[in-house]
């Protein structure tokens, strides 16, 4: 297969970026999009040109490292699939494919297709954690969690932290990410001790760096971990719940 790739090149956060056009003549349908970039880089190195900087790691859809935008869609044309699981078979022979970094004000470009997504980590640091030190937890079998709640918690805990939700949102909101963490920890008994405190601090941090929810649901379509759209409601529910409780109450 022949594909024309328009790839974003940018030397650093302050540098001016541009699209660069390259042609791949031997793409195959079973190649993943990252393997297509591997192919391009191989070709560039052979021609003594600087290869395209892009991030990836597990290439199994679980680490959340790969974050590229394909033809304006985070991760690529297939819904709910990370870039490493997107394939060339989605394109037709001769098609032009535009590859850009995740676009969001809170994700500055570091180089080419690599962006800085540490803003999401700062939301976690603000309160997406559980204050239990090593060795102090009670017997996990004596704390009962219903089968349903464990499965529900896992639906939200599956977030891979890739940032596609932010990039997909016209407002650059991190509601899906933040809500997934709140909805997950709400169902973990040890984490319930700080439920209100967590909601207040995570939401405050989220609002400091990310935009307001656009309510259109693009985030859930882009999410490779299939985080349910209900996560967005969890942000408001947890925030309002915390608002009704006295500020001195942490749970």
């Amino acid at each position: 297969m022949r594909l024309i790739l328009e790839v974003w090149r940018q030397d650093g956060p302050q540098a001016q970026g541009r699209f660069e056009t390259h042609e791949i003549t031997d793409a195959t349908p079973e190649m993943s999009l990252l393997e297509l970039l591997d192919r391009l880089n191989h070709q560039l190195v052979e021609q003594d040109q600087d290869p395209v900087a892009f991030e990836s790691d597990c290439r199994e859809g679980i680490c959340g490292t790969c974050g590229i935008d394909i033809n304006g869609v985070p991760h690529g044309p297939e819904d709910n699939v990370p870039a490493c699981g997107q394939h060339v078979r989605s394109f037709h022979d001769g098609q032009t494919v535009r590859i850009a970094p995740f676009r969001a004000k809170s994700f500055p470009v570091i180089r080419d297709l690599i962006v800085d997504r540490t803003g999401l980590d700062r939301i976690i640091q603000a309160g997406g954690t559980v204050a239990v030190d090593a060795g102090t937890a009670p017997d996990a079998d004596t704390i009962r969690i219903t089968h349903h709640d464990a499965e529900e918690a896992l639906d939200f805990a599956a977030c891979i932290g890739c940032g596609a939700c932010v990039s997909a949102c016209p407002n650059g909101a991190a509601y899906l990410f933040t809500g997934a963490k709140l909805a997950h920890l709400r169902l973990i008994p040890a984490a319930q001790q700080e439920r209100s405190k967590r909601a207040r601090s995570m939401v405050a941090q989220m609002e400091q760096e990310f935009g307001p929810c656009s309510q259109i649901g693009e985030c859930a379509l882009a999410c490779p971990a299939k985080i349910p759209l209900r996560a967005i409601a969890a942000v408001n529910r947890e925030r309002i719940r915390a608002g009704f409780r006295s500020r001195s109450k942490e749970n």
Partner: protein
Amino acid sequence: MSAAKATEGKGTAVDPLSLDALRVIGQELDGHLPDVHPRDAWTDRKLHYNLVNPANRRRFKIIVVGTGLAGAGAAAALGELGYDVEVFSYHDVPRRAHSVAAQGGINSPRARKVDNDSIDRFVKDTVKGGDYRGREQDAYRLGEEGIRVIDHMQAIGAAFAREYGGQLATRSFGGVQVSRTYYTRGQTGQQLEIAAAHALSRQVAAGTCKLHSRQELLDIIVKDGRAQGIVVRDLVTGKVRAMTAHAVVLCTGGYGNIYYKATLAKNSNASAIWRAYKRGAFFANPCFVQIHPTALPLMSQWQSKKTLMSESLRNDGRIWAPRKKDDDRDPNDIPEEERFYFLEERYPAFGNLVPRDVASRNIRERIDAGYGVGPLKNAVYLDFRTGIERLGAKVIRERYSNLFDMYHELTGEDPFQTPMRIAPSVHFTMGGLWSDYDQMTSIPGLFVGGEAGWGYHGANRLGANSLLSGCVDGWFTLPYSVPNYLAGLLGKEPLAHDDPAVTQTIADVEARVERLLSVNGSHGPDYFHEKLGAIMDRYASVSRDVEGLTKAIGLIRELREEFWRDVKVIGEGDRLNQELETAGRVADYLELAELLCVDALDRDESAGAHFRTDHEIDGEAARDDEHWCFCSAWGVPAESGPDAGKHIRNYEPLTFVAVPLQQRNYK
């Protein structure tokens, strides 16, 4: 031991690739094991550890490298205790470390059921599964601490699967006849890793841990015989800098990517442990490499890696190959009597749940014998039809939904409709930096945790024991043993940054980076990596022999020479440069690969994953306990003298008290 020593050469060999020209026998090592029954070893050791007063803890600086389960756990736990922790990772955020990709589960001998599990049985399974080449005492510690690991990980957010009664659910894994594997669907590693990374985030927010992301370790600073710091390269700016501390903990994972296409993440590499080795840390059992039986086979030239399909699938999936060679029929059209369920037939007691090395060799045997399936005839089937009929599609979906989705995504085939195609792939390395019982390497002050180390898994790791060892090392071992070392350093400041040992190590790193950039050859680093992978796959994989290993060592030396003559690294060193990162890693693989093959050549027996075709009984690995019941711990060759250039094989004898030596038998 005497017989092993007796094999030492007398210096008459002329062939540079003969064993006597390649290696020399070194010293016997002391694992500093407690002098009590292995069952009581950890309790005894903890009682004798020195402690650090809570008020003094913040005066001790500890560097932790890596943020997988072991690294994030160790950093968070040491931070919780009040130490001043500096955490380094080449990722952008801690949560991405490759522990995140582990699928099936985490073992814990909590023994809540009446299936007759216990810590002793866990140790028996682990030691026997590892074919008696690990430490029994370490396995006991793993089992003992493994119990509260589940409590802790649950409390900090891991959403373990629950039964309808609300209690924790378990499943079975290979090499074990009880059900002791705790799980969260097929993404247990992810849930544990996120919980651990977030616990680390809590310490970062509290100020006890400082996080240095996008930094790659390129050397260890050793002065006065102690590890006193590290040198890192900032992957964004290219700046090389040092950080000194009272102790350094390496939790930097395994070296399986030496095989080029493995199930490991693309960035997983051996540089941290190899740099430590070059500075004097012994390397234990490098030839013990686990080939996982159930990975997706290679399907095309550009496929960048292999993808694991969790061992847990063997609970409900049945492995088979057609009885007829080159059977091209759709698998659903092949009638039951024409399917060869070879694991079930050959190993009736364990069936599809035999340990990984046994499964891999049997699958490879079927493929090599011409019974492989798929377009490249390089796979066998993993079939869920029986499981779906017995339990219903809903239950199977609950247990494995994300694995089935992943398979569907990658291959375009639905495992509910058609069996998976799977093949063996390099997956885990049991070898790693040698350490004593306190997880301290042969460089005092340098500790190791997780897959970067050795000890628990011997010559073959049991499924779901790696998440366990990462968690136990990080949360419940290093936080005890590192302070014991620190207690003796009270009042000492970390090495000054203008100390000659620091500036020299920085200069060494800069010179090496410069050397890589200045070769200006004709091929990128990947070219050499691919060639190395082909050598390793051919000669150092599921089965090995003297002739092949000898040949491999010669080929690796040629390739290494070619690399330093002809590698091309595009771009400069003072910016983000992924080609440069790859080149440094490949340069280290080219050295480690030789040691791996020398170790495989040296170890004149079969044990677990190390299967030598000249040592087998009925197709099973034949150990030689009389001569080889020890851990090989390799040291850097001397630069001059009669043994110049020879790899030095030190050895730590292994003794087995609770699980007496016996031949493995899964039939």
